[in-house]
């Protein structure tokens, strides 16, 4: 069951919740890769107690770098056909990941399925977060020509082709935008899928701030300038 799937969970100081997240994911997916991004808490210990694979960056480099490391680890296994990125803090539901995977299996022409909280029934998105996300996706669609409703959803399911070519360079949170840019650039066939985000107090406290959103925008713009 789902032997051909690699679930990648980037983790930075999520020792408190990772055990619970992993319990749910491991029930459905036997091959889970936890990329510990230089955590200073009990993350390593918590992951070691489970059957999930553990990779550790010895210093914190950001979520984008962690996801790319997880992809490269998973690619070492030639029998892995599908990759899933899943947040450590418990904001995603495993049944959404399963539904997205089922969609990708049924639609072999699709390369990547992206979760969207605005297509699904999200449990109470805080107002500021909602405005921020709307601005982000407007900016993203305007600069890439994509048609998406959610820019920064950590739940994604993609095939081996995407995993090989994604090559995330932005180490920090800007990777979410970078992935959209890469999808357009490499002409991957994408599909947005409604998902439900569970906004716990824990994930609310950890979410993106306004300042960070501005930083990311600048990073993306500068990256475009430098590349050309």
């Amino acid at each position, binding site marked *: 069951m789902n032997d051909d799937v690699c679930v990648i969970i980037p983790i930075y100081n999520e020792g408190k919740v990772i055990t619970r997240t992993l319990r749910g994911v491991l029930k459905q997916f036997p091959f889970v890769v936890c990329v510990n991004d230089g955590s200073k808490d009990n993350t390593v210990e918590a992951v070691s107690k489970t059957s999930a694979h553990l990779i550790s960056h010895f210093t914190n480099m950001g979520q984008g770098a962690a996801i790319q*490391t997880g992809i490269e680890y998973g690619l070492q296994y030639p029998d892995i056909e599908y990759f899933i990125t899943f947040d450590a803090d418990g904001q995603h539901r495993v049944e959404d990941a399963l539904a997205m995977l089922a969609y990708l299996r049924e639609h072999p022409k699709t390369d990547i399925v992206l979760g969207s909280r605005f297509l699904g029934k999200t449990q109470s998105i805080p107002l500021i977060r909602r405005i921020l996300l709307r601005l982000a996706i407007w900016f993203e669609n305007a600069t890439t020509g994509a048609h998406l409703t959610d820019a920064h959803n950590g739940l994604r399911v993609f095939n081996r082709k995407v995993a090989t070519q994604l090559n995330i360079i932005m180490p920090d949170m800007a990777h979410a935008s970078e992935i959209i840019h890469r999808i357009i650039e490499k002409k991957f066939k994408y599909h947005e899928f409604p998902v439900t985000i569970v906004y716990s107090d824990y994930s609310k406290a950890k979410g993106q701030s306004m300042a960070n959103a501005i930083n990311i925008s600048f990073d993306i713009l500068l990256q475009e300038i*430098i590349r050309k």
Partner: protein
Amino acid sequence: MILIQVILIVAFLLLLTRFLVDPNSHQMKAGQKLITVLFFALAIFAVLFPGALNRIAHLVGVGRGADLLLYVLTLTFIFTIFSLYVRDKQNQRQVVALVRRIALIEANQNPHNRPRPKKRTFSEDNAGAG
């Protein structure tokens, strides 16, 4: 010669020798080095003959030599910041690649990660590519 001219010229000469003696300057491209030396020569020239700077300023439509200096300085500053930013990003990329490589090597050696037997090794990867 006015005192400020002496101070400035001595400071420029000290900086120039410091720059030329620095062992890291060997890695610099010859062209870059030449431009830097030229830059110092111009700076000393401007200190010795402030009138010349004024005339150049008038030529490009700026009132005073000192104003021209400020504009050029601003441009140079922005250019420097930008090139430092680019270099910092390159350095960051190298660090990320390094940390990732180490993390993957360690993970592949970690007995905890061994339940999947169908693993391909790096050497097989290389053989397949060649």
